[in-house]
């Protein structure tokens, strides 16, 4: 079909003419099914034709105050030295937090992050990087990617505001993740100790539980009866404090992180990595010789397969906590990013045209509410999954050899 359609760049024109010809041919022969199919194809390609527009290649040296959605998104899910509440007009309402720095050359420095003025001023020889300073650094020829300099990082500067790369800074600041973790910790300790004191005084032991006991007791018995006893067997009481702590800490941090203005603690890889390392340590400390025997000498496996299987088994010891870490981190950060994206979409649409922004906001708000409900479910679910999988791995670690009878029967079936 070599028609001179290629004068127009639009391939939809070609497809449209093809379908139109087939439709015309089938119309003559009155084959209804082929007729309808090619009619559909013709209409669809006509639709495609009509919605194409010209798009020009973007000039990369555009105006500096262009909206950067990627940066705004990352700013919401990463750690920061202040609680950012809201932007009213051009002022941002924030709660500044203490900055605690130590450098071997300069000693300790403790001050509030409001002294940085969102990266506008230098204080005590320190500066927080913001967009303009990042551009200044790039102009001065500093390789920002290699030296890991990004927005929000605190660097040491010389007297004439140049980056001083020789001073090493150890940042012990109370960032918003730290403050939120401490608040959640205080909340948990207060609730749990209050309830424990109530039980010690006899309320709720032989009588019905009262007050806040009604909230916490079903959750604790749920963890004990669905996670502790089925997975851990007789040793469940030894591990219950750890499992309950992990469950409640992850759960309350997840839920508090959903409130607008708070920090994204569980969506931080460092936080989940520490939880995963602690779970790994608990698992290793509850292993017995039978477990290591199964790893280095898997039963019922011929010799040459063992050479491949043993490294895989050793790797399996580390991948299980690693999967726990990544699962919690990815679930929480994906949820926060989706919510931030929905809000950002309104702004992006609004930049294109005011009507589009206003028209899109009901859809975005409705979808955000829906996603918020899913995020509450995910908060409970991820805490439960972390706890349950930790319990499963611990139970796998102290399995006793009474399964060996089954292994032998399997062996006979394979050898025949």
């Amino acid at each position, binding site marked *: 079909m070599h028609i001179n359609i290629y004068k127009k760049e639009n391939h939809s024109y070609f497809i449209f003419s093809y379908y139109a010809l087939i439709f015309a041919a089938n119309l003559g022969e009155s084959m209804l099914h082929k007729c309808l199919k090619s009619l559909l194809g013709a209409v669809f390609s006509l639709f495609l034709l009509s919605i194409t527009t010209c798009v020009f290649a973007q000039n990369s040296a555009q105006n500096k105050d262009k909206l950067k959605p*990627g940066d705004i998104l990352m700013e919401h899910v990463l750690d920061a030295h202040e609680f950012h509440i809201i932007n009213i007009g051009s002022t941002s309402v924030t709660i500044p937090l203490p900055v605690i720095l130590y450098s071997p050359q300069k000693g300790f420095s403790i001050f509030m992050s409001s002294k940085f003025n969102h990266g506008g001023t230098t204080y005590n020889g320190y500066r927080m990087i913001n967009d303009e300073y990042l551009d200044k650094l790039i102009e001065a020829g500093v390789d920002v990617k290699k030296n890991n300099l990004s927005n929000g990082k605190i660097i040491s500067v010389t007297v004439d505001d140049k980056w001083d790369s020789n001073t090493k800074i150890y940042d012990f600041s109370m960032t918003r993740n730290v403050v939120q973790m401490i608040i959640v910790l205080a909340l948990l300790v207060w609730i749990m100790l209050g309830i424990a004191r109530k039980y010690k005084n006899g309320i709720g032991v032989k009588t019905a539980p009262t007050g806040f006991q009604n909230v916490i007791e079903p959750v604790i018995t749920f963890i004990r009866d669905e996670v502790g006893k089925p997975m851990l067997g007789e040793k469940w009481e030894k591990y219950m404090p750890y499992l309950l702590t992990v469950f409640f800490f992850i759960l309350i941090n997840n839920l508090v992180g959903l409130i607008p203005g708070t920090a994204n603690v569980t969506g931080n890889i460092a936080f989940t990595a520490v939880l995963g390392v602690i779970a790994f340590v608990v698992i290793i400390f509850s292993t017995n010789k039978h477990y290591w025997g199964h790893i280095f000498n898997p039963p019922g496996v011929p010799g040459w397969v063992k050479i491949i299987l043993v490294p895989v088994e050793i790797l399996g010891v580390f991948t299980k906590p690693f999967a726990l870490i990544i699962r919690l981190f990815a679930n929480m950060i*994906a949820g926060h990013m989706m919510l931030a994206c929905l809000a950002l979409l309104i702004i992006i649409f609004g930049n294109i045209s005011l009507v589009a922004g206003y028209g899109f906001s009901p859809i975005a708000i409705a979808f955000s509410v829906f996603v918020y409900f899913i995020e509450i479910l995910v908060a409970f679910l991820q805490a439960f999954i972390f706890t349950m999988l930790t319990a499963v791995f611990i139970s796998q670690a102290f399995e006793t050899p009474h399964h060996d009878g089954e292994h032998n029967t399997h062996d006979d079936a394979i050898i025949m």
Partner: protein
Amino acid sequence: MSMMTILLDATGNSYGFAAIGAGLAAIGAGIGIGQVGKGAVESIARQPEALNDIRSNMILAAALVEGVALFAVIAALIVIFK
């Protein structure tokens, strides 16, 4: 030139491929969790008394499948933000 090389040439970075990877991960997660749900609902239909056991096993399997799909999302995010 094929369409892929044209696309790569036009933008100069591989953000589009990262988005395609994340989309494929979503397809994988959808298929996997759909199978888990199908098995769970069918077995509840066969034996309604086992509802609680089946429900907790279904949630456990769904979270494991979702974890694997989110590995791919993390890889896509690393491509974009590094």
